[in-house]
């Protein structure tokens, strides 16, 4: 060679340094893990009734369930953002007694079975619940077994994902920018809106995507708190479970739809905005 070759050339050429011993101990379990995650979907695709797929998709109960799932999951994500971002700020930035307890409480919905969450929601917001009783008496509001209940159940299980993601972003953000804003006369609310929020934007988006995905897949709390009324509270996961009892082929179709929709949206968002997560 007459002149030094750039690194890219060397990397692909014969000057590339050979790797050491192949790391079997890592690669083998990794491949088994990957297969374990992918195989069920292969089964789904293999058993799909492709011939009748088109007609099944157009059934009104399929469309109804899909529409309900998409709208409630999106509404739940919006609520989770509106309530969860300030909550994350409080946990990350404010000093108050019981902050550790509050942080622990936020993660409770992550660790309890969703069915238990649904029971708890029913006891709190149901017609005879501690809060629901008053809602019924004073405003004539009955939450359980309505589309609103679907959203509430989804917010309950999905918001912790958002709070944890945003809180992490807030802790990682350089607080000196907030100090700089304060020296320029910005109140804490203005600092949050004009400096902090733009800095943690990717974290909020990542959290929202996680929350949306979790809300879309929500089953246990929904069926307990909101019931299973087609067209009103029957979301896709509920419809799939029910279909599985009667005609497995319908369940497969519904599962494919849900899989396709979530993959489509998650992949699109991840590639565009959530590169770091």
């Amino acid at each position, binding site marked *: 060679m007459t002149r030094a070759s750039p690194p890219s050339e060397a990397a692909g050429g014969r000057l590339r340094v050979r790797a050491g011993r192949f790391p079997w101990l890592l690669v083998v379990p990794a491949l088994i893990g990957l297969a374990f995650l992918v195989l069920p979907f292969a089964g789904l695709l293999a058993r799909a009734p492709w011939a009748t797929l088109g007609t099944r998709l157009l059934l009104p109960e399929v469309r109804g369930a899909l529409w309900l799932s998409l709208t409630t999951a999106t509404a739940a994500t919006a609520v989770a953002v509106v309530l969860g971002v300030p909550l994350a700020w409080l946990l990350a930035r404010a000093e108050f007694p019981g902050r550790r307890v509050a942080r622990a409480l936020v993660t409770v919905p992550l660790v309890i079975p969703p069915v238990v969450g649904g029971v708890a929601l029913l006891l709190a917001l149901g017609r005879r619940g501690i809060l629901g009783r008053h809602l019924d008496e004073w405003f004539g509001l009955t939450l359980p077994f309505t589309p609103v209940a679907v959203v509430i159940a989804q917010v309950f299980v999905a918001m912790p994902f958002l709070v944890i993601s945003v809180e992490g972003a807030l802790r990682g953000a350089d607080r000196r920018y907030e*100090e*700089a*804003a*304060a*020296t*320029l*006369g*910005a109140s804490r609310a203005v600092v949050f809106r004009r400096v902090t929020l733009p800095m943690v934007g990717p974290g909020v988006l990542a959290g929202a995507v996680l929350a949306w995905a979790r809300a879309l897949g929500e089953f246990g709390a929904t069926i307990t708190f909101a019931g299973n009324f087609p067209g009103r509270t029957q979301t896709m996961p509920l419809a799939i479970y029910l279909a599985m009892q009667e005609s497995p082929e319908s369940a497969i179709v519904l599962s494919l739809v849900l899989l396709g929709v979530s993959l489509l949206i998650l992949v699109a968002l991840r590639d565009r905005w959530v590169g770091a997560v």
Partner: protein
Amino acid sequence: MTEQETGSTGGEDAGAGLDARLALDRGAFRLDAALRARPGEVVAVLGPNGSGKSTALRALAGLESLAAGRIVLGGEDITTMPAERRPVGMVFQDYLLFGHLDALDNVAFGPRCQGAGRAEARARAAELLERMGLAEYANARPGALSGGQAQRVALARALAVRPRLLLLDEPLAALDVHARASVRSELRRRLADLDCATVLVTHDPLDAMVLADRITVLEAGAVVQEGPPGEVAQHPRTAYVARLVGLNLYRGHARGTRVAVAGAAQGEHAEVSLSERREGEVFVAFPPRSVALYRERPDGTPRNLWRLRIDGVERFGDQVRVHLDGDFPLLADITPEALAELELGGGVEVWAGVKATEVRCYPA
């Protein structure tokens, strides 16, 4: 101590500018320093890392609470005022420009927070950028600016709130060596034009000498010296300042033309001869370049002569700096030729001579 004289309140112009005594504890570290700056005056707080100078600046900005003392600015006590209400502008060490806003909106941020409308704030920001010679960079994001440009945007942003006190934290530290020289003299001009009080913090004596009207030297949380740059450079009062300005400094007791240097053993080696008579506690100082080194004891002229051991030799500009240890440790700058002629090396004992007329002596 000097800080007690200046720390007391009620000076000749207590109403204008900054008059502060800052006391706070950070674990084992204690900061207790008095700082004053008249309107239009630039005061440099000079100190080594960990001397508390940045903490002092943060306390003035309201980003740090005091344990004791008070901060009076323009006659108003702002000791407990929240940062966002203080009439203080701050330029941070790495500028901290908001990455999601362009230069114009960075500068307009402060006026907006103070209640100006969007158009008014932008107009003021545009005017300031123009003054900084950055009109064509108004729509540039901070990431696209050079270090010097970013510093000017940060300065414009701090000035946009029309502060009565401007704070600069290591204003040149984030720049590379090439940019530093030009930005330093440019900053000097801009600071000289301001009518607010300015306090800047630096560990670089050159920055302090060039930028400031007055220097306050902070060591281990306390003010150890204060005065105009020339005065501080000529008459250092601590080893730290002496090292910064490149002087050999000793403290001793003068009797007539002889000074017994404290700390060294009593005897010939610990004495310094002066060209004029002095009495009492004094500092003696002389520059390393006034020291001559000899292998053999020279006859005649130099009045001060010490037998010392060479501890190390390093390059210093076009000179060679020789570290000498013994009863009277000192630094000597000699030419490389002189070094070669003397055939000096580590561990060799030599005679070091300084003329009495080269020795500065001032009261301690």
